[in-house]
């Protein structure tokens, strides 16, 4: 692990993380991760939060801390795909493991709130694991959630406001 300061670390994506991301994309969206990522994969961590990125550029200068395509996050000790990655998967395949939520729920979800079952307009099975949350107008991915039967809601795992919260 290349530690540039106590706050920033940049390192090749560990095999365990890559396999975990592959398993998630296979299980939820029936997609082979290798079809969507580059040859070289890395993580950039600020404290305990990490961005995972992928590139085909072979040359890597000293002091490079990020480049290429954003493929995932490690946030609150959980590894999840990026919204960009899953949108690329949806562009090539049918929707799957996704819920389309109404306008109000989209807005609240982007404030970190959960989505109640009653706010779901469309379900694309399977929805019992990790699901992509889609806004109703363009059906773009605004974050990820998982179903919690105790509240009959989809718990927010992370949403696009992560950019404001994590990265300032």
């Amino acid at each position: 692990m290349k530690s540039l300061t106590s706050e920033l670390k940049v390192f090749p994506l560990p095999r365990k993380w890559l396999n975990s991301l592959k398993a998630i994309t296979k299980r939820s969206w029936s997609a082979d991760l290798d079809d969507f990522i580059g040859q070289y994969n890395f993580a950039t961590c600020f404290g305990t939060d990490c961005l995972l990125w992928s590139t085909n550029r072979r040359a890597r200068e000293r002091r490079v801390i990020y480049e290429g395509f954003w493929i995932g996050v490690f946030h609150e000790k959980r590894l999840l795909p990026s919204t960009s990655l899953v949108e690329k998967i949806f562009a090539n395949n049918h929707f799957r493991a996704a819920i389309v939520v109404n306008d109000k729920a989209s807005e609240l979800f982007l404030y970190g709130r959960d989505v109640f079952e009653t706010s779901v307009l469309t379900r694309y099975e399977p929805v019992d694991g990790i699901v992509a949350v889609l806004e109703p107008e363009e059906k773009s991915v605004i974050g990820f959630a998982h179903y919690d039967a105790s509240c009959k809601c989809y718990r927010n795992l992370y949403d696009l406001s992560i950019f404001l919260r994590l990265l300032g």
Partner: protein
Amino acid sequence: MEEDVLEILKEIFVKPSEKAHELSSKYRILPYMAERYMRILGEAGAIEMLRSFEKPVKPVIRVNTLRISPDRLKSSLEDKGFKLERLPWCDSAFKIIEAPEQPSPGATLEYLKGYYYLHRDSSSLLPVLLLTHEYSGDILDACAAPGGKTTFLAEKVYGKGIVYANDLVLRRLRSLIGHITRMRIENVVVTWSDARKISKVFNRKFGRILLDAPCSGEGRISVDPGRRTRTSIYELALMVKREIELLDSLIDMLDDEGIIAYSTCSIAPEENEYVVSKILDKRKDVEVVPPPVKLFEYSPWIKRYGGMVFHEELDKCVRLWPHVHGTFGFTTCLLRRTRR
């Protein structure tokens, strides 16, 4: 005090007059700044400019055209209560004339989806448009964070080049990475280093370099009133020294015939005309080139200030004055490397 800083200080020092002290106290700026404005613009012009600092500058939405068309974004934001006006010299940018109470322009769904970058003002678009005019290839953005210009450069050379975005301040690089991921821009490589030592990072040269130098920010007083009194003349001399070092090191990173845009958000001639004149005095392999396109009526750089007479060719460089252009005070100068 270091000898070269002392030398700079001697050259840029001006003794404030009584009138400058009067303006300084009325407009809450440092006396040397008031003296400078009077010498450059005359008393009436100085007062006009100082009054323009009180007027709020309209923020600008620059559309990420890789994700959405300007017209579609405009319509979508207007449905939310925004009133937007297209910039006459940049098709993909809109001034925010009115904004609803909620959502703020930096928290709309469209913003989070990466459909636009929110600039404090339109001036920062200028060096990008000048530097990328009819250009294909890689670009080094040497002091890149927080990323407004980087993301615009990347859009301009998308499919034709990579933007190498460097900065020294980690906290600001974090924001830069945030904007790149939010806007889903894939042709950017982010590096963390002191731009003065960047030859140790890149074993190559560049056809275009943007140096938006860390500066006093004296052109941004309208949005950051602390800048009225933040920079003593000694601190200004330190910044000038760093600006000269940055520009000098980065010219070494240019290809033959490569062009660097030196820009600052400062109206101080010490940070602009003085810096570039020092470089022209020192180096024989660089020349000033005029803007390749006239986007609007530019003001030229000034010819003399205090006891200093600047290079004639600096009249090809561009100044934006708050009281003339209705923007932040901002400067850009294009320099071409001619031979080794």
